[in-house]
């Protein structure tokens, strides 16, 4: 059976890179006594796949890993068992036994369908953006001006080449406080699956683990994410700083991921990965 685990990654764990997070969870599942499915051969390894790897330095409320299990106890118990072996900075908030694909259907991984993600980007305390942008209001005004532009062109550098890219269409929403952000999500989302706690799934309501800073300079944004189009929040902040003629300091910003979505083709709405049935 395939199980989707949702977890939060925060605090000092933001310094643990993606490959190490994978190793960490492999060992954690063993500690929790999960009946994992293994690949065959002399170096058997657990069957697991992560959605949209998180970069070092970022925190998140919505990391997903799909795992293969031979058997499972009650979802609530399974969730408790894994949280009992987590170290500070990892907290599992969902355990969901996915529906098997019907025989004629292709078994797609939700991970390959990731199309969008929400982020909260905050200025860390101790950093000054510029003399003219010191308060939340000043930041909001500057950012709205920036977002109002027809095109936002950045110079995207890869190892081999540099290309000019218009990132404006990849930013699908911005917002400056939590209420406003949640409000704007409402019409945008589709739920294929309710968070009922039953014999197939168990979800915890855990509060966001985003760090809170006194300066209150922050922006919520929804960005294209995944294999088709991918925009990192850092690039948006860099473009914003360039626009305002402020030097971009990558260490000054804390990026926190709030949710990952796939896009429903018929309704063109977004579905959070924990609202999918499989």
């Amino acid at each position: 059976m395939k199980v989707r685990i949702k977890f939060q990654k925060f605090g000092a764990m933001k310094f643990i890179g993606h490959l190490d997070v994978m190793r960490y969870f492999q060992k954690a599942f063993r500690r929790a006594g999960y009946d994992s499915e293994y690949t065959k051969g002399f170096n058997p390894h657990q069957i697991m796949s992560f959605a949209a790897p998180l970069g070092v330095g970022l925190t998140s409320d919505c990391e997903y890993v799909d795992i293969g299990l031979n058997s499972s106890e009650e979802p609530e118990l399974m969730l408790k068992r894994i949280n009992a072996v987590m170290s500070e900075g990892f907290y599992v908030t969902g355990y969901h036994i996915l529906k098997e694909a019907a025989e004629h259907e292709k078994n797609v991984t939700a991970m390959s369908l990731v199309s969008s993600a929400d982020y909260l980007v905050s200025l860390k305390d101790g950093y000054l953006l510029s003399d003219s942008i010191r308060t939340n209001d000043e930041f909001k005004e500057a950012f709205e001006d920036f977002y109002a532009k027809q095109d936002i062109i950045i110079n995207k550098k890869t190892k081999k080449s540099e290309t000019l890219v218009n990132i404006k269409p990849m930013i699908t929403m911005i917002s400056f406080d939590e209420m406003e952000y949640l409000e704007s999500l409402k019409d945008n989302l589709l739920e294929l699956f309710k968070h009922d706690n039953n014999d197939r799934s168990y979800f915890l309501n855990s509060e966001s683990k985003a760090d809170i800073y006194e300066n209150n300079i922050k922006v919520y944004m929804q960005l294209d994410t995944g294999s088709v189009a991918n925009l990192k929040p850092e690039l948006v902040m860099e473009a914003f700083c360039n626009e305002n003629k402020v030097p971009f300091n990558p260490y000054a910003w804390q990026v926190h991921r709030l949710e990952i979505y796939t896009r429903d083709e018929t309704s063109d709405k977004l579905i959070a990965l924990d609202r999918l049935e499989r």
Partner: protein
Amino acid sequence: MRKLALSDEILLSVEKPARYIGGEVNMRVKDPRDVDIRFCMCFPDLYEIGMSHLGIQILYDILNRREDTYCERVYSPWVDLDKLMREKNIPLFALESQDAVKNFDFLGITLQYEMCYTNILQILELSQIPIYAKDRTEDDPIVIGGGPCSYNPEPIAEFFDFFYIGEGETAYNEFLDLYKECKNFGRSKREFLELVSQIEGIYVPAFYDVNYNEDGTIKSFEKNYKEAPDRVKKQVEMKLSEAYYPTKPLVPFIKATQDRVVLEIQRGCIRGCRFCQAGMIYRPNRERDIEYLKKCAYKMLNSTGHEEISLSSLSSSDYSQLQELVYFLIDEFGSKGVNISLPSLRIDAFSLDVMGKVQDIRKSSLTFAPEAGSQRLRDVINKGLTEDAILKGAAEAFQSGWNRVKLYFMIGLPTETEEDIEGIAVLSDKIARVYYEIPKDKRQGKVSIVASSSFFVPKPFTPFQWCRMDSPEEFLQKQRLLRSKINEQLNRKSIKFNWHEAELSELEGVLARGDRKLSRVIYDAYKSGCIYDSWSEHFKYDKWLKAFEENDISISFYNSRERHEDEIFPWDIIDAGVSKSFLLREYRRAKSGAVTPNCRELCVGCGAKQFGGGVCYEVGEILDKPAIANHDVGNDDLIISTDANSHVLGGMQ
């Protein structure tokens, strides 16, 4: 939430920030305000290496069992962070609480190899603790050393307040109790050191003055505190199956060198290889009870989630219940995706069967450690391993499907001749010939033989402690000779030859058998930028040479001199259990090429019997069984493994 000592900006700008944040699985969490003693345990090398060390895990566990003590850890910051900490004047901190080390009661440093000595000074300096013990105040932590290099602590004696000689299980609690009492009574550090010197196994170097002869050798040790012991006796844990074993070892986030459960099946070694320090200082050989080990294996795999378990000992094949243990591990955990890794096994039907079960033969290689190229020289070093046995073992393994062989040799062993060196090339070739005797349709492609040679470094408390060591020039000359001999062999294209750096071995030799005069050299080398010497990319030979020169200290005095039989050694202050007269007897036997039986065959009175247990008390019983007594156990000591053998010397990479 735990607060980190370093800012995000620093952590995100250095390599692998996970080295500095702590918070690992099974990390012990205590409130520092609730304890009387704060102890910081240090492995003076990179985090990934230090986290792989079993000894630290054992001590971490023992100390944290005490409610009045919080034991935390620190490792050497890598060069990138080192630079930033100096620039920003950030004091070195412990991983658990992230508090500055300088505010701890103790800083305990494990001394695993000589080439970490400059890293010790880095730890002290970054901690903002005065480097020389004499410069420290009542407010500075008490700096302790322990581990194999503490058996000759003299080159670094001036940097330490005291050394703990022997295994940590025994006297730690005693001196911590004493410390707590002293702290409660407001006693000074000096008073504490005086009292602690009365505990067996503790060496306070400041209580001894060293007098030298005109030729630079030691004339005498003179006590300046009359109550200090004449000699410091190593401490041994005799009840290994009752001793603490860390069943909840720490699990790092980043991949450590040992990313597995390590099960220590025994301590000490019954073989008396004359070059091997571990084989002498860890005597007597003591086995852990098999039922105890099975329980530990369960608990450790459960508490860590590791996918691999490895047996640790100097010579696993000598563990009397090895077969039962290995088959238990395979049956119990093999089906649960746990790999079983078995270093240092003698090759026989059992090991081939096991290897076939636990490893992919195509990917693994067979490791032999003949150490020397000729039978004559193998007898000199008491490495009871015959050519016949190597070739037979290789043939059996080749027939079972292996086609890769690793061979470990040492160059520069005492009495070595050109024929012995040529023997390395000839033996490598003979192994290849054995492979090609297998019919073509039955073998798996070409054979690959990797012959690695390290340079022999004489160590204290071995029969070769009197020997001269070759100079780098001699080593290189011998290496060239070996290379040309390999090129003369029929199967030269199947033989790959690896070697170590001669300069690093030279320095290791000086520090291994050095005296107190070297502390100035180590200090100056460190101050001129030497650090991470065991990492070849950071080893600065020229700076070391300059430090020797400026202090008017000659390397050849330590390395190129055959020592007199009655010379007083810097490490004579330590009583390691094996007697100097035994070592000397062994040295003389070595020179005449006489092989000495192992502990199970015959007790040769090394001195370890005084500890009252272990193999010393099973000998009589075994000798009564003629089948075993007549069997030449010492001559089939083949080693089959995928890991480096414990005798391999040199750098850490």
